[in-house]
């Protein structure tokens, strides 16, 4: 079934209007993904997110771009993006499943469609995944990672190493691991599926500067993986990871800029109609609109069968700068009240999370200079 995009969008919007409000978390929407929540509330949100995912799946909205043989509707990745855009109008707690559904799922479908149970576990909301790429000595330079997976005589694998900044590892049943199986460099990497409850996996939560704790340090000590653990061919880990990072750029959403909340706060303070306040808000709204259009463009190229491509780096850069601008505006608007620790001061401190996650500004700029502009590389 391939619907005409506008008709499909209308259909999605109508369905969401009816169903999403019942799955909306109570209380005000968080201003950033790094707002402090206590553990009980976090567990509640994860459960809600999983039930919402299951509900979407049962109604046929859980995996638009998956082939019908895998439980999807055989539509384009562009339709997934369309749906998440519509979905982001509601305060449904999708962000804990972002890595799972927007990054791991398309990677599995592309590289390991035979992993049917895992794919089904994701689209039905049964399992939360985390992505174990970064290490203490391998961040921007991902190919320097050292966690080692060794094949045993019986074909199983043993993994030892340390991962860091792993979002949602403390909530995840499964991990998507990038490890070294061969020589140094890009060629010696393999991607794996990992049971986070396996013996030898231990997790330490890391406190972020807002006070939240959405990521972790993950220690892998002689963890045994089954024969069929690799995602994609052995030695092709770099290519597998690139599929994931491409999809991550598609996940860059304008909803990370809390324009409505900023506007409401300005109104609450009786300052909405002051020219400098209105102009500041207008600048933020313009950034949201620009970002939405930028995304539409990427979606079009995906619809025509292309990849999101390095243009995604422009979107990531623009988003991160926009979140920083919104944070600056919030500080300016809130004025002296920002000295108190509350949701606004946490928002003022959240932007470095967005600047780093998914590659820093410098890394994105280097991709643009190298791959799009074809400039000579830095010596």
């Amino acid at each position: 079934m391939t619907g005409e995009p506008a008709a499909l969008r209308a259909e999605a919007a109508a369905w969401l209007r009816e169903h999403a409000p019942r799955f909306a978390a109570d209380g005000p929407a968080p201003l950033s993904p790094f707002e402090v929540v206590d553990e009980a509330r976090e567990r509640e949100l994860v459960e809600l997110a999983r039930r919402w995912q299951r509900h979407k799946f049962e109604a046929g909205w859980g995996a638009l771009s998956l082939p019908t043989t895998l439980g999807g509707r055989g539509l384009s990745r562009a339709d997934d993006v369309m749906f998440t855009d519509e979905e982001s109008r509601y305060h449904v707690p999708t962000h804990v499943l972002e890595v799972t559904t927007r990054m791991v799922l398309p990677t599995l479908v592309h590289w390991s469609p035979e992993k049917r149970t895992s794919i089904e576990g994701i689209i039905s909301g049964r399992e939360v995944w985390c992505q174990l790429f970064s290490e203490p000595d391998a961040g921007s330079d991902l190919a320097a990672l050292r966690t080692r997976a060794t094949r045993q005589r019986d074909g199983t694998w043993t993994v030892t190493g340390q991962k860091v900044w792993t979002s949602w590892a403390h909530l995840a049943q499964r991990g998507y691991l990038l490890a070294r199986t061969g020589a140094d460099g890009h060629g010696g990497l393999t991607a794996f599926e990992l049971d986070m409850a396996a013996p030898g996996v231990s997790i330490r939560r890391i406190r972020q500067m807002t006070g939240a704790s959405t990521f972790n340090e993950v220690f892998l000590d002689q963890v045994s993986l089954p024969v069929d653990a690799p995602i994609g061919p052995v030695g092709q880990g770099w290519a597998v990871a690139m599929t994931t990072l491409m999809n991550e750029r598609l996940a860059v959403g304008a909803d990370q800029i809390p324009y409505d909340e900023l506007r409401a706060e300005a109104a609450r303070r009786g300052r909405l109609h002051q020219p400098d306040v209105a102009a500041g808000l207008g600048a933020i709204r313009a950034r949201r609109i620009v970002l939405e259009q930028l995304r539409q463009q990427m979606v079009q190229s995906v619809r025509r069968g292309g990849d999101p491509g390095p243009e995604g780096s422009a979107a990531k850069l623009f988003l991160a700068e926009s979140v920083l601008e919104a944070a600056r505006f919030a500080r300016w608007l809130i004025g002296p009240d920002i000295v108190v620790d509350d949701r606004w001061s946490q928002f003022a401190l959240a932007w470095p999370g967005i600047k780093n996650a998914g590659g820093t500004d410098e890394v994105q700029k280097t991709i643009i200079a190298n791959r799009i502009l074809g400039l000579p590389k830095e010596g």
Partner: protein
Amino acid sequence: MHADDDVEHQIRAELSRVVESARSRRSLRERTEGGDDDATRRQLSELGILDAMLPDGPGLAGGGLRHVLAAVEEAAVGLVAPDLLVSTLALWTGLAAQPRPGELRQILLGPTAVAWPGVLAGAESVRQADRSVTGRLGYVPAGLSAQHLVLVLPDASGAVVCLVTLDNARREALPVLDLSRPAAVLELRSAHTRELGCLSPAELTRLRAAWLVAIAADCLGGMRAAHDAAVGYARQRIAFGRSIGSFQAVRHRCADMFVDVETTRAVVRGAIDAVDEGGEDVDALALAAASHAMEVFSRVAESSILVHGALGFTYECDAHFYLRRSYSNAAATGGVDRLRAELAIG
């Protein structure tokens, strides 16, 4: 021209030692949870920093502002002595009102908090009646432990400066953005006050300039530390087989921070001299120093976080404590824009 004199030099060296020794015992994360430890407190009190401001004869013949602000700046490098800035403001304000020696001792005993509606945010509701004040102070650094509060209350002929006894004040610890500077909400109900003196508009202008310059010195110390940490990390962190400090993007970021620090150093020192020497341009210098220092402190602290990558976004790294101080300093004084508007229009 500001040249380091021997006393200033010595104060800086001694404070650096206190900072180094505090750092060697406990991480900043631990210190923001429990405050300075006893050893740091003892070292600081032995230095008698505030005494440098005292008159050692008739009039102000002490070290003036320069020596104590050298200490404020160096303390901010390590985010030690959380109450030093406000105690300095309290004493300087008290001295300006020319109190009796007994009253001066009470301020000195410290920590003494300060409030000045219109200059430091949070004191707008305070009202004076007879020999008492009533009102809610929404943000009082050092407010949890202070015995007294020096209050500047502007009136038609300038301002009165009062010493408020906090024995019966209702205090509530405030969860604050700047974790290295604890603060409280104070509820004053007919709190006993003593008038220390009255200030003419000219004296008030000079006092305000001193407050701004003191906060600017605090910003300067903080940004120096944030810059040093970034340069240190850029040197040591390896990516793509080289130190990240060899990538032009990182090098330039560090160089930009250097420009911010050096420009601030120049304008803050100039402003301190103007306050100490009673220069005519003191007001403009203080406004320029404070607005510049506040803006670039935030920028330097932001950059320092970015140089540290994801580590900079966590409590495993000290960078965010400086960002918190920078955002808080700028907000507490009503924001950079207000100071700039005043600089242009008066």
